[in-house]
């Protein structure tokens, strides 16, 4: 008898075959003495073993047995604190997923608002450089390419100097 047939006989006794296969096996076993012997052995062994697991009792007191479990649970919880406030958790996750990007966007808008006035200022700039004798006002307009340097005295009057015309830079 080949191995496949032996395993099929076992599967038949274990109710692991389809009804069709089971019927075929039953027919075969009834006509094959060797298959019958194997089926008899397996059937009686199954009957002997099934439900006859040795029953063991815990060799220590019930209190001692459970106290060890209790300690282990306490230790495990201490080592790995569980996220107890489960109702809070979704809010936290929601806040992390949605509030954080929105807050980031708001910060960017705020920065733009701060920067915006600077960018809306006229493109030209005016710099005053006062000194004890002569005051200088430096005017530069990059859009037209004009730079004007204005000299004035302590009274605030412009210094009349024909050379001052040299201070005007014409765009090329």
């Amino acid at each position, binding site marked *: 008898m080949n*191995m496949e047939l*032996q*395993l099929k006989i*076992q*599967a038949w006794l*274990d109710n*692991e075959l389809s009804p069709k296969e089971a019927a075929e096996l039953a027919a075969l076993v009834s006509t094959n003495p060797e298959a019958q*012997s*194997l089926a*008899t*052995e*397996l059937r*009686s*062994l*199954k009957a*002997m*073993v*099934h*439900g*006859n*697991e*040795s*029953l*063991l009792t*815990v*060799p*220590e007191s019930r209190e001692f*047995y459970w106290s*060890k*479990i209790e300690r*282990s*649970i306490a230790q*495990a919880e201490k080592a790995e604190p569980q996220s107890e406030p489960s109702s809070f958790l979704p809010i936290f996750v929601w806040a992390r997923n949605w509030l954080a990007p929105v807050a980031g966007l708001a910060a960017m808008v705020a920065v733009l608002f701060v920067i915006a006035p600077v960018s809306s200022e006229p493109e030209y700039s005016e710099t005053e450089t006062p000194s004890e004798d002569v005051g200088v006002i430096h005017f530069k307009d990059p859009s037209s390419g004009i730079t004007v340097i204005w000299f004035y005295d302590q009274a605030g009057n412009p210094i009349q100097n024909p050379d001052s015309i040299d201070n005007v830079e014409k765009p090329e």
Partner: protein
Amino acid sequence: MLRNEDEALDVSQEAWVKGWQRLKQFQGQSEFATWMTRIVINLCLDHLRKKKRQQVESLEELDEEWGGAERRMPYLTVNPTEGLERHELRKRIDQALTHLSESHRKVLVLYEFEEMDYKEIAKMMDCSIGTVMSRLFYARRRLAALLMSLKKERDSE
């Protein structure tokens, strides 16, 4: 399944700790006892796997795994446990189980005592249904031989 009382005790306690930690995963689709038994079985199998990694299998064990001696054994014609009281029968079976290889014992225990089918055992042991079938077959044949030799020992006393 473990064949060691201290280890069995440790694993059973570990199972309760695991059960507590995974209580939220218990959906109530099966009975609580079934769910807990699955945890115990998984821990036993893990324990045996870890232990096996530390051991080198002997040639004898490998021979037993593939049913070396069982292939040549004649079929039983008498019941080796006939006339035994139930507690004696249980003791005899327990003795015989001790002599089975670990892989054979695991399959036999899961099938006969935990009442799992081939598919469930294969899934739990991470092997094919064919492997479960052959292991179960050799486990039964070997168990039959062991029970027979225990009967002979008893009869000769």
